[in-house]
């Protein structure tokens, strides 16, 4: 029974991991940019959430998701417009790596200066520990909420990309940046919005993760690794693949922790290696 509960909880948290990765998947898929500062933005949104919660003590953190996401969108838009757009057009793939890495370091140091290096969490009150019984299993209320939110956001993203005019423009820009200019589309502006969107999604994941576990300004690297693992596991170029990848990693981690409490993310990593070695293009990946 405990095992089934653990697996179910793993699935629920796995949705969170998927959300961590889908922002990165957007950036890599549309712009072919490796954003090494993704983890830092995830942590920054958690800090912003903590600060807002401080300023507005009566408001539940979950409600703060919206303003934090908006702030993250603005930051992403700005980051792309001011910095990343300058290196996106270069054929050299290392330029974006170097740039985003520099951004990550600057952000890390700024966060230490502003917020200090002590571990923080985002308190969610009774909700964090509330649990309910479904079909005889005890599951946390918060994880269910997180899963619902993740699935909702994923579905929304998929709808936007596949069914709207904006989504069409994004897909076309990802396919061929030059030809899309012939149709009056400015690729730079598309990238601005995509980056904003990606970071907004990451910020939601960052806040939700902060409710579950503590974080410091140095937590960005772990978050980055998870994001990469999710994207790669699912396969580059798929969104739902990232969701599945996230769930797989979540289950592996929680199940692993059940019988090996000291392991940290070890079993998630092991699962990643095994899957990726068996399917070198990820679970659903088309393009290598």
């Amino acid at each position, binding site marked *: 029974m405990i095992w089934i509960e653990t697996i179910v909880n793993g699935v629920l948290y796995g949705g969170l991991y998927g959300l961590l990765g889908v922002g990165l998947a957007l950036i890599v898929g549309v712009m072919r940019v490796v954003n090494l500062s993704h983890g830092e933005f995830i942590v920054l949104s958690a800090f912003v959430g903590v600060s807002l919660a401080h300023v507005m003590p009566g408001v539940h953190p979950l409600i703060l998701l919206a303003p934090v996401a908006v702030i993250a969108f603005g930051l992403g838009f700005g980051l792309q417009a001011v910095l990343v757009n300058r290196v996106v057009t270069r054929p050299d793939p290392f330029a974006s790596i170097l740039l985003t890495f520099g951004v990550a370091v600057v952000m*890390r140091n700024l966060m230490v200066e502003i917020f200090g290096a002590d571990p923080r969490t985002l308190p969610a009150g009774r909700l964090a520990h509330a649990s309910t019984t479904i079909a005889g299993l005890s599951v946390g209320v918060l994880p269910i909420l997180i899963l619902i939110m993740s699935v909702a956001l994923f579905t929304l993203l998929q709808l936007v990309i596949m069914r709207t005019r904006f989504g069409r423009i994004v897909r076309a820009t990802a396919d061929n940046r030059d030809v899309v200019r012939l149709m009056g589309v400015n690729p730079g502006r598309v990238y601005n919005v995509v980056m904003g969107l990606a970071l907004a999604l990451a910020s939601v994941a960052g806040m939700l993760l902060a409710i579950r576990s503590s974080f410091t300004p140095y937590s960005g690297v772990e978050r980055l690794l998870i994001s990469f693992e999710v994207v790669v596991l699912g396969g580059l170029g798929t969104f739902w693949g990232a969701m599945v990848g996230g769930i797989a990693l979540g289950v592996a981690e929680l199940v692993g922790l059940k019988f090996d409490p000291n392991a940290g993310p070890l079993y998630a*990593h*092991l699962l990643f*290696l095994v899957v990726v*070695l068996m399917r*070198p293009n990820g679970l659903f990946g088309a393009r290598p």
Partner: protein
Amino acid sequence: MTKVSRLVLALAGVAAAAGPWWLGDGPMRFLSELFLMLAMAQTWNLLAGYAGLVSMGQQVFVGLGAYSLFVTSIALNLAPFWVLPVAPLVCAAVAAVVALFLFRLREAYFAIGTWVFSEVVSLTISKIERLGGERGMGLPTAKLIDPRWLEPLTFWLSTATAAGAIVGTYALLRSRVGLGLMTVRDNDLAAASIGVDVWRCRFVAFVLAAAGCGLAGAVSFAATLYAAPSLAFDPNWVVVMMFVVLIGGIGTLEGPIVGVIIYFTLSELVTVVFNLSAGWYLDHKLPAADLYRVDPNRLRDMVTIVRDRIKEYVVPHRKRLLVIEDNDIERESIVELLAHDDIEVTAVGHDPEPSARCPA
């Protein structure tokens, strides 16, 4: 090699050997760190710049080098520097095995795969109590070394490791495997079609890079007398390697040299000028990132100029060419076409002993 560069190298060698006597402890430690970083960067450069393997997990060999040294030294109760060769050997062995699996992955998948592998090793070691677990382990056998010789030995070993990395890379690139690597770097599909064993070339590069990193890691941690998973397997190692190589010029022998000079200069500059407290080795990247995005062309030009200057002294640039052509007119036009400042052309009508002239 030109006479000047030979002289410069000889002088540098003498200066290094005499280091402990004319350098203070501080500068010696600084240079040790610089040389070790140079060695590590050179291995990352070999992988990414020549073999086309972008590894974000190279720190695993830094850590494995350190731990294998510590464990062997304590187990055999020998002073650490005597068992130094264990580090590169262990790393080479691990790399050889791991390559069989990781080489199935390509590009981004390979990069993330190596990083995850490093985390797995790190987490596994932190669960082993005999190795000190998360807290790490010390190096009691360091007592067997006369403390006055610890810094000088570290300094000499660091210098030797750096020199070895550079010479080793150079030698590798001139070998058959090396030539194969250069074709692989440019276009691995084309390389395979002309019969280059792509897998083997990459394998050799990967194993050698692992050995180099392992040696550098072992020396680095032996000097600090303490190893812990969070330090030994810190992704920051590969991040600095990457930074140094990219800023100095990837795929060139002198790139890591230039890069490591820029890296340490910037970090000194920032700590002195800006006086920031949050980790000196992090802060230097602030102005670097600024420079890169504000004026990338000028920075590139500056770096290229510096790089070319160093190149003139470090890299032997005189090539020897033998032209055998019995038709006088053809021979002369070939010589005219190919002649250049740095090519020494010998033109003959026919060659009685074809093998004698070509160096091995």
